């Protein structure tokens, strides 16, 4: 009944909706869609440094995916993006959910904790990267200094120089930076749950775990949809933290290389490679774009369905 009422919009309402929708879309079209489409076109051309050469069809795409030089680098980096995604999903979003639940109960000092958890989020990524780089310095950084002070000398490591810990260190720095974001988004989601529902469940003798699993988690599904989609996109566009902390090469020996760094190196070069190739860079970016669009859409649709089901 409600729906049929809404399906007969007047001209006035149509104009109103157009007024709402047209300016944002026009803005996006001019400053994002148009430049991106031009950039996609670049992927089909050969490039001499920065000057566009002949049309070469799919050659750049083949090189990125299967070329002897580029493909191993790309797949190596892709794997690291996947690791980062999985790790951050657990640490950042999962941790955020747990923290939100603890804050939701408004224990002693929750106002302070709520402010504290969000402090790193407001810091600039450049600051966070530099800060942790200084802290993780093997000889003078506070991380190792603290371990020495506690007598845990054998735990001290050259964190960013050891290929077994470097990527993990970047992921933790990122989680430190951003965990407050999912925490506060989940908290907002939980606070929208009618308290009666939780009260009722409590009275039924539901234990903490069942309450979280069967009541809270499904009810914050809209928050989950947003957070997981944003994390997915963020993980595959990951650039600033690795750039600041381990440099363009994904040091040591590619163990922290991610697609964002590969793209930047390919398109803009670095001192040691000296090659700048907009064709390959655009091809990589186009593939990355398609990958993210397809998977993020699937993820969103799937998560959205959970929302509706409930």
């Amino acid at each position: 009944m409600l729906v049929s009422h809404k399906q007969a919009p007047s001209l006035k309402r149509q104009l109103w909706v157009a007024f709402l929708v047209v300016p944002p879309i026009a803005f996006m079209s001019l400053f994002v869609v148009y430049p991106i489409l031009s950039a996609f076109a670049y992927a089909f051309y050969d490039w001499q440094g920065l000057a566009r050469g002949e049309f070469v069809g799919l050659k750049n795409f083949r090189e990125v995916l299967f070329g002897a030089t580029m493909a191993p680098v790309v797949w190596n980096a892709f794997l690291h993006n996947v690791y980062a995604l999985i790790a951050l999903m657990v640490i950042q979003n999962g941790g955020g959910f747990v923290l939100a639940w603890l804050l939701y109960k408004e224990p002693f000092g929750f106002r302070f904790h709520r402010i504290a958890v969000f402090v790193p989020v407001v810091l600039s990524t450049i600051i966070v990267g530099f800060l942790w780089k200084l802290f993780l310095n093997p000889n003078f950084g506070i991380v190792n200094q603290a371990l020495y002070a506690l007598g845990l000398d054998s735990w001290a490591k050259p964190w960013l120089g050891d290929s077994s810990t470097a990527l993990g260190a970047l992921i933790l720095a990122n989680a430190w930076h951003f965990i407050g974001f999912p925490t506060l988004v989940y908290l907002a989601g939980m606070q929208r749950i009618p308290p009666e529902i939780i009260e009722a469940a409590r009275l039924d003798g539901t234990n903490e775990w069942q309450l979280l699993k069967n009541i809270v988690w499904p009810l914050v599904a809209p928050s989950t949809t947003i957070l997981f989609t944003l994390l997915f996109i963020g993980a595959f566009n990951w650039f600033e933290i690795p750039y600041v902390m381990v440099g363009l090469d994904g040091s040591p020996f590619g163990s922290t290389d991610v697609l964002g760094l590969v793209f930047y190196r390919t398109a803009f070069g670095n001192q040691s490679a000296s090659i700048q190739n907009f064709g390959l860079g655009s091809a990589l970016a186009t593939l990355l774009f398609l990958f993210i669009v397809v998977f993020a859409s699937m993820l969103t649709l799937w998560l959205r369905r959970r929302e509706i089901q409930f």
Partner: protein
Amino acid sequence: MKLTRRILMAAAAGSFLFSGTAAMAQTELSFWSWRQEDKAFYQDMIKQFQEKNPGITVKFETFAPENYQTILSTALAAGRGPDVIQVRAYGNLETIATPGYLLPLDKQNVPELANFPESALAAETLRSDGKVYAVPFATQAQLVVYNKKIFQDAGLTPPKTWDELMKAAETLKAKNITPFANGTATAWQNETIVGGLLSSMLGKDFEADIVSGKANFTDPRFVNALAKLKDVSQYFSPNFTGVDYPSSQQLFAAGRAAMFAGGSYEIANFKKQNPSLDLGVFPAPVLKAGDQALVATYYDGGYAVNAKSDNKDAALKFVRFLATPEYGTAFTNTLKNLSPIKGIKIEDPITQEVAKLADNSMSYLMLVRFRYQEPSGSVLLQSNVQKMLAGQQTPEQAAAEINKGIATYYKPFQK
């Protein structure tokens, strides 16, 4: 909206015209560089140039080195960019010279090119057309910088052979002094370390054989040198795999380490941070007494003219000024960096030493010969040496990986 914009534009144009006529046909040149730390020197030189050339003013602008190439390329691709450009050499030069962004230089438009040795001009020459595109500004050498006071206190003299080096390092370590400040966390540091420590063991013949295709990187000379490097890395700074470039500079400048394997360009920096340091340099140690001791040299870059500049004549005048022995002398003595211009007078004793060492040199191999294609020899050397020094592959494996990468495009290796 449109009207306001037009009025604003008219006002801007008006004020531009006004200032233009008032200053009597002043030509303003823009000059881009990544050498932020040399700003005072360049301002000073510009002042001298402007005094000699009234009617031309030069605006010097600097950008962060790691982003310089991006900014420059982007500006050039969009048809903008400065009139005079500080460019790098070799493969890096090719990316901006090949699309025609730079004005070719010759003895007609820049007679001062005669002031330079052939090898310096070769560094700024495009391989495809054989034309020179920039006036070179500095020769760099990879060698070992050492702290004279620490050496004296430990009763050491600069080592000549590899065994002497190992013994000296052991002596220092026994006295609780870090022998080498070096770390390998910053990828490109691995290449400078190889240049500074292994050049004499590789030798000029090895370079000639690589160029002619008689040898490749699986050659025993290369593999053995890498093995020696692995050996000496026990004397690098503690936790060296996690020590990045600034930290190792820090360690050496603070007088906490005895040696630093790296570029001659480090010296000025060390002195600036700690003027009380008494420094010396020595070439890579030789395998056995009697071998020729070498440093690895290359040319840093040059000054080029934007092919699309509206002020080419003024820009050429400025570039010619940057190619004179007077400029080279000032450059060398102020910045403690060796200018390749012939006939300069060097005041600083360490720079004199560097200049003398540079007479016996091989190329800084990967930069000079293998930075033109992907995967660049530099990237291969850096990551594979880094991996080897972290104990994750043997010297043989590192050499094989480097060779495999270069062989994908280097014909002589494909046999």
